[in-house]
């Protein structure tokens, strides 16, 4: 197989994911409504309770809704990653996973393509969310921030999507997926800097702040936050890329026919 053929395969998987997404209007609407609800209801209620002092990357004091916007962007990608993982489990149960896995491309490439397709969908969701939050709530970032955001979104999307892939390789049935919501999405989100800055966590509870500091989701949020303000957070970048590589390796392992889930469960 030549590099061009690899790209054709990738493109085919991205197009299919895009087509599926356009058929799932509810998924798109809920991906938009969820963060907007947080912005409108949660942030409005808490803006007077939770003052945010001047912290990097902000040059000045910011409104609470501006502070939580990067966290909500990461939340969109987190939900999208889990949604993709859910669709992998669904594909496996419905059989369409086999079509993908019998393609004559290496499995790591097929999984990476699937991942990238999910990220592309999440990037569209994020920009639509940013447009709507600007139009409805006047939340804006520096103009170039929207451009720097794009590569950051690809990296954070890859990390969160790989997390979903790993989960999908270990989840046996669709019904077990509800547990993922309780034991993955919520803990990741609430023990991160999505809703409160780290110093506030430290004031409230030092060990919670420690968890928050090592949570990869925190670093995804910070990479996005800094990118929106035209800055690069090197530490966050290193953690996001490192976590992605580890999770991707775990996902490839999980989908390896000789050791992974297909073999263990006698189910493909």
């Amino acid at each position, binding site marked *: *197989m*030549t590099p*061009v*053929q*690899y790209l*054709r*395969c990738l*493109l*085919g*998987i991205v*197009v*299919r994911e895009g*087509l*599926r997404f356009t*058929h799932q209007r509810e998924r798109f609407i809920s991906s938009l409504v969820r963060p907007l609800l947080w912005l409108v209801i949660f942030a409005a209620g808490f803006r007077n309770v939770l003052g945010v002092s001047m912290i990097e990357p902000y040059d000045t004091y910011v409104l609470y809704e501006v502070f939580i916007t990067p966290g909500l962007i990461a939340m969109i990608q987190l939900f999208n990653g889990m949604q993709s993982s859910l669709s992998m489990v669904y594909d496996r149960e*419905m*059989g*369409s996973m*086999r*079509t*993908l*896995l*019998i*393609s*004559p*491309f*290496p499995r790591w490439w097929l999984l990476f393509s699937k991942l990238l397709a999910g990220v592309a969908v999440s990037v569209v969701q994020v920009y639509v969310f940013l447009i709507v939050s600007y139009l409805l709530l006047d939340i804006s970032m520096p103009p170039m921030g929207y451009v720097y955001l794009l590569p950051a979104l690809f990296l954070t999307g890859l990390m969160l999507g790989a997390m979903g892939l790993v989960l999908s390789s270990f989840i046996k049935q669709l019904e077990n997926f509800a547990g993922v919501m309780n034991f993955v999405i919520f803990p990741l989100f609430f023990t991160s800097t999505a809703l409160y800055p780290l110093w506030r966590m430290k004031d409230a509870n030092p060990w919670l702040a420690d968890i928050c500091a090592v949570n990869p989701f925190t670093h995804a949020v910070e990479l996005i936050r800094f990118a929106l303000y035209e800055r690069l957070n090197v530490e966050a970048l290193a953690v996001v890329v490192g976590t992605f590589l580890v999770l991707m390796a775990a996902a490839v392992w999980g989908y*390896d*026919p*000789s050791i992974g889930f*297909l*073999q263990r469960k*006698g189910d*493909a």
Partner: protein
Amino acid sequence: MTGTAALAISGLSYAYGTRTVLKDVGLTVPQGGFAVLLGPNGAGKTTLFSLITQLFAFRKGSIFIHGVDVSKHPLAALGLIGVVFQQPTLDLDLTIDQNLKYHAALHGMPGKVAKDRIAQALERVDLTAERATVVRKLSGGQRRRVEIGRALIHNPRFLLLDEPTVGLDIASRKSILTHVRALCRDTGLGVLWATHLLDEVEGDDHLIVLDKGEVKAAGSVDQVILASGTQNLGAAFSSLVGS
């Protein structure tokens, strides 16, 4: 033998944990031959297909497709085969055309080639007029025909079909079987057709009887009947699988 046969399996064993599902399986499908893998439900047919297509990895035995060792060159081997799984694998919300384009992309095919091959495949399975139809709106028989067409887009040399007529009415079953036999005859494609239905076997087929993970008999239909010491295929099958 491994160099010339469409499929050559020898000494293949496989277990899910401690439960053995295939025991020392050996079989051959000649190039351009139509072979029927006949066995009751639970005989190990689907597991065998999963091993040939590398969805599962095996540690004991060997599988060659047109001389290509599946365990050493899995991707090259996958490029040679077309597969129709027992379980439907089409994306129901996409059109026939979109489903087929996805398959072409999964084989790295350029757009123009994919377009021509899809047109050919649809013509072959007589679904050209429905190409823009969403799969959900098609009948069970039509969906199966799409899957057969799809399996042929990348010009495989060997076609695997795992109980492709399950759940179809008699007319659709007959039409699909006739179609695949014609393909085999006209294009020289090797075919392995797995089924538990005796009436899908014809006199000049190469027959392999699989039961409880073991090959009980293999050869021409007449050879299998003769070896079982019975008068017809029904009796031969009953005596071989002990039912």
